[in-house]
């Protein structure tokens, strides 16, 4: 022994290995991307961006629609005549409703002079009464309880529909993300984005879901 103190780590294999092997940490020079790789990356970024935009657009659109319909439903429930007056296109609603009722009457095969007059009065009565916001609320309430004549629902929107239905008691059908948005309840409310007055939608017709009527 030469009298030097013995380092207790001299026999530590890990230490010996660390001292002997010092990896070269210098980064390799970047390899230039091929043109094809650059193109793929650009496409991937583009697709991702477009998808994100579309998702945002769709999400925004759906959120807007849900919000608008909820506002409309709230207005109906609360019989907010002023809101409904500004968001419901009664001028289009009346003849559309009357046409739907006329079609219903004709399905009964009850044509004839006196029956036409009677059914015409009944149709006029129903149409005229449906003009009043509070009557509209009553129809919705009754049909909701009746649970009849609901239209089909776009499968991808089922979750949204369910949650909104829970909130608003309405059932939705979106045939296309673009307008017309079609909202179906028992009385088939067909809505389009409002042409005025901000993000609200305009109730343009009120009819029978199975009639196949679309906005």
């Amino acid at each position, binding site marked *: 022994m030469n009298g030097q103190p013995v380092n207790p780590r001299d026999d530590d294999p890990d230490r010996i290995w660390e001292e002997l092997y010092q990896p070269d940490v210098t980064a390799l020079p970047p390899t230039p991307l091929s043109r094809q790789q650059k193109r793929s990356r650009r496409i991937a970024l583009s697709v991702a961006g477009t998808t994100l935009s579309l998702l945002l657009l769709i999400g925004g659109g759906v959120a807007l629609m849900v919000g608008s319909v909820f506002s409309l439903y709230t207005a109906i*429930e609360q*019989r907010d005549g002023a809101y409904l007056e500004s968001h419901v296109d009664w001028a289009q609603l009346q003849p559309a409703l009357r046409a*739907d*009722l006329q079609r*219903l*009457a*004709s*399905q*009964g*095969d*009850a044509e*004839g*002079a*006196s*029956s036409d*007059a*009677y*059914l015409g*009065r*009944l*149709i006029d*009565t*129903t*149409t*005229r*009464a*449906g003009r*009043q916001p*509070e*009557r509209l*609320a*009553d*129809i*919705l*309430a*009754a*049909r*909701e*309880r*009746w649970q009849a004549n609901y239209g089909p629902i776009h499968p991808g929107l089922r979750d949204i529909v369910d949650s909104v239905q829970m909130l608003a008691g309405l059932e939705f059908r979106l045939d296309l993300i673009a307008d017309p948005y079609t909202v179906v309840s028992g*009385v088939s409310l067909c809505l389009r984005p409002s042409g005025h007055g901000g993000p609200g939608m305009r109730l343009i017709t009120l*009819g*029978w879901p199975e009639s196949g009527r679309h906005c």
Partner: protein
Amino acid sequence: MPVDKTVFPRPRVSLSRRGVLAGAVASLGLAVPAYAERQAPLVDAAEWHSFRDRFIQADGRVLDTANGGISHSEGQGWGMLFAARFDDRDSFTRISDWRRRVLKRSHDALHAWRCRAGPAEVVDDFNNATDGDLLIAWGLLEAANRWQDAALLVEGQALAQDILRLLVRSPGGRTVLVPGLRGFEHPTYVVVNPSYYIFPAFQVLAEAVPDPAWVEIAAHGINLLRSGRFGRWQLPPDWLAVTGRAQLPRPAPGWPTRFSYDAVRVPLYMAWAGLAHEPAVAAAARLWSRPPSVVMPAWVDLVSGQSADYPAPTGIRAIAHLSIAASSGLGGLAGMPHVADADDYYSAALTLLSRLAWRDLGMPV
């Protein structure tokens, strides 16, 4: 005079647990709809007083004197309608309160159809009768308009909504009103009572609850009454079996195949609604227009051709007078029987209804 107005037994059922009526009906700030054109003709007030004094108890219970003094939703409904038309609010309140207290079902807006005779007020069948519920709704809505009473409107609307919710069926694509919640739907057909199509009431109910279903019910009902006529006289039976639009209706199995005490109301309600030229009204007018030497029968059997061997009571004669006048323009109100001439509750009610219809139609007095 023998009276065989049968109260056809409805199937006995126990009150089912149904969903509680949602509180979505209008409750605040409602404008009572205006039925200005249906304001009551008060000129026949004596006829109403005659009915009221003979058949309505002090507590508002309407007695069916031809059926042992039972009471039912039909009687309460007619009583409410009469009282509203004749501006008799005190009577209306008593009749309606008794109806609400005794017949009103707890889990929906409909009514049990029958209360046993006697002071105990025992409801022995909780099934409803659709005509009774239609009449009660009609009476409530007429009263709501006459006295501008929003509470009556709300009650009438709730009942009209439950009629649509619970009593409409679509056998084979034909929209019908079932006569009651229970007992009329069979595997291959649905039993319908044509006289439960109270066409003038549909107008009032549609104004209060403007649901497209009223139009559908009325249109299909008119068609049903065109195709559901049988026998030599081509008249509707008291009870029809309806399968679908592809098949013609037929007299309901298990029921008498008669144009009788039920079906006589078909021409009454159709004429009242301005449908006097429908085949069912014209056919009844033909039956009742035979020469005076031929006794007007109380009923005719649509299969055997047999007629009752006793004459039609006052109420049926009143409907006959109305039907003939409305469809042919012959006759005046002077020839119409009076309530005091009627032997019993049913006949008196039909007489008063015929008089109301006459006035509503603006026919010559």
